[in-house]
């Protein structure tokens, strides 16, 4: 799912993309150092950790909810629906990626551009 983050521009993108861009910046930071890079990469690291934590929390709550569903067919249906919605959403150009060089709006399959 997309989240808002800030690395110089506001961007709506999955945490995975945030983590990817942060990794790139961290590599540059490791090679070059410098206050500006520390600041920008630091923003990315903090936000990646924050959103990852939030998603882990949400996933844990969702897992508990699924566990409470007694009927196995219903449980499978709930998991299947969640997976289906996540897959469908990954195909939708639903978030802006201004930091991308190639697209104004993108989807999960273009995470790394």
């Amino acid at each position, binding site marked *: 799912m997309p989240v808002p983050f*800030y*690395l*110089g*521009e*506001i961007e709506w993108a999955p945490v995975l993309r945030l983590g990817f*861009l942060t990794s*790139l*910046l961290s*590599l*540059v930071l490791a*090679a*070059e150092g*410098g206050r*500006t*890079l520390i600041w*920008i990469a630091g923003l990315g690291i903090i936000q990646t950790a924050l959103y990852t934590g939030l998603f882990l929390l949400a996933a844990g709550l969702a897992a508990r909810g699924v566990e409470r569903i007694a009927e196995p067919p219903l449980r499978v249906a709930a998991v299947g629906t969640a997976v289906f919605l996540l897959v469908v959403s990954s195909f939708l150009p639903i978030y802006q990626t*201004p*930091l*991308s*060089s*190639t*697209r*104004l*709006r993108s989807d999960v399959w273009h995470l790394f*551009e």
Partner: protein
Amino acid sequence: MKRGALLSAVALALLAPAAAAPFERSEERAPCAASDPLRRPWFGDLHVHTRYSLDASTQGTRTRPSEAYAFARGEPLGLQPFSARGEPGRTVRLARPLDFAAVTDHAELFGEVNLCNTPGATGFDSIVCLVYRGWPRLAFFFMNARGAPRFSFCGEGGRDCLTAAGGPWREMQEAAEAAYDRSAACRFTTFVGYEWTKSVQTANNLHRNVIFRNAAVPALPASAVDALTPEDLWDALDRDCRDGARGCEAVVIPHNSNLSGGFMFAPEQLRSGAPFDAAYAERRADYERLVEVMQHKGDSECRLGAGTSDELCTSELLPYDSFMGRFNPLARHVPAALNFTRTALAAGLVHQAKLGANPFRFGLIGSTDTHLGAAGLVEERGHPGHGGAGIPIGDTLPDALLDPIEYNPGGLAGVWAEENSRDAIFEALKRRETFATSGPRIVFRLFAGWHLDARMCGADFARRGDAEGVAMGGELGAPPVRGDAPVVAAWALQDPGTAESPGVPLQRLQIIKLWVENGEPREAVVDAAGEKNGATVDPQTCEPSGAGAAQLCAVWRDPDFDASAPALYYARVVQNPTCRWSAYACNAAGVRCEDSSTIRAGFEGCCDANYPKTIQERAWTSPVWYTPK
């Protein structure tokens, strides 16, 4: 007779030659066959970026300096998106060539960009260059924000990047030389230049363009990596140009004060934090003779509510006062008065009264700041975006507005010079005999004197202005008789346009007076010719309605003149309303704001109530100053 031909005939009649106005020749060239001692208006663009600017290259701009000059001379230019075979997705062409232009790429990262784009070069395989080539938009931010020290791939003391910077710098000089018409035809003039790109705090803009008089230029441009303040820039120009290169001379042109957070015209020296003194003021006025009042990132003349109640200070205003404000809502502040040229001009008078010297003695120009290399491309209809830090264009042209809604196509610089040669135009820049336009080729001229005759609007405007007054950019001098008041004569001629894009009539000509009263700046805006004529334009069809004037001329005597108070006078003229670039784009995309289903993603700006669908294009003269003795 057609309207355009009539306007040209009127212009020529008003520009008839008279007494010679000599200027110093600093280079070898054929004398221009057409030279006019009363001077002619030349239109140009002194702010053009090509592939050697990081922000342009990271947007896919491939234009070389030579191509930018060719475009300015009327040749077509291919723009991104480019196919795998290098074929441009779009082609643009000026309907009317420019008279002069300067490529002014950002001086800061010439070498870095060059190395990152040169296989086998030092640093080509560095992580910075890998990110630059693979994720240029990301690289745009951290490379721009880096400053000193340079990246490690630049080697000890940045040696390799400085060496690599010589390549683009030489190419810029060679392109300028190749495009400069040294024949007697004098069709086109180029200037070697660059942009010094310093920002402070939340990316508050202190950027300045440096324009050189001729081919004598420093070995390398002074970048903000090494010259950290404007004072450092002037030091570098003293060292490497005035004292270091024979025949070298430069003017420095601040721009986008609207994005400076007030720092551009702050009353302290930026290097030391000390208040201005006379020496500082004189030095600044000596280098910074002009200010770019209009370009694609907005109008920097004035803002309604920010120290003025001028109702026309509402055009092409940005909603933020720093670059970061564009990207981050937390840094978004409404620009205050100190961001605007009119405030600075008035503050300059206050400094004059206190110090005996005026640091803000600016003539006015406009330019585009194109990051596509498309010098002078100012048409609202079909505006292709400006490139640079705008919206990325990938493999295909996005189905969206091609520029942020708050941007515009930019303006032009007008210069009154005897001929179209480097020396003549540079001298005009130095004496501030310039005018700015928001795009249209409105011809605009101003003289001031003590006894100018109202009849000069009918004939011999320039001859009488020169003989009996001073041209814009000049100093009025003392009143010859006690009780005399300044008389300002301003004359504007509408842009004749082209067959495909006819010119738009003029609506109003105004005189703006700034003066000091009890140590405080004051302003008055006077309608001197024309009127609110009720002309309109249909934003759906862009069809104009209502009449206007082919030319406006006014001779205005200051009724409230105080000979003991410093003052200045400049003029502004506005056209009848026309469609803004976004209205053309939104109409073409079928957007109807009353039907939300037509507002596709990427066109949301079409219906943003903060941005009008219509504009009043305009022009400004440089001021004439009055300094009490």
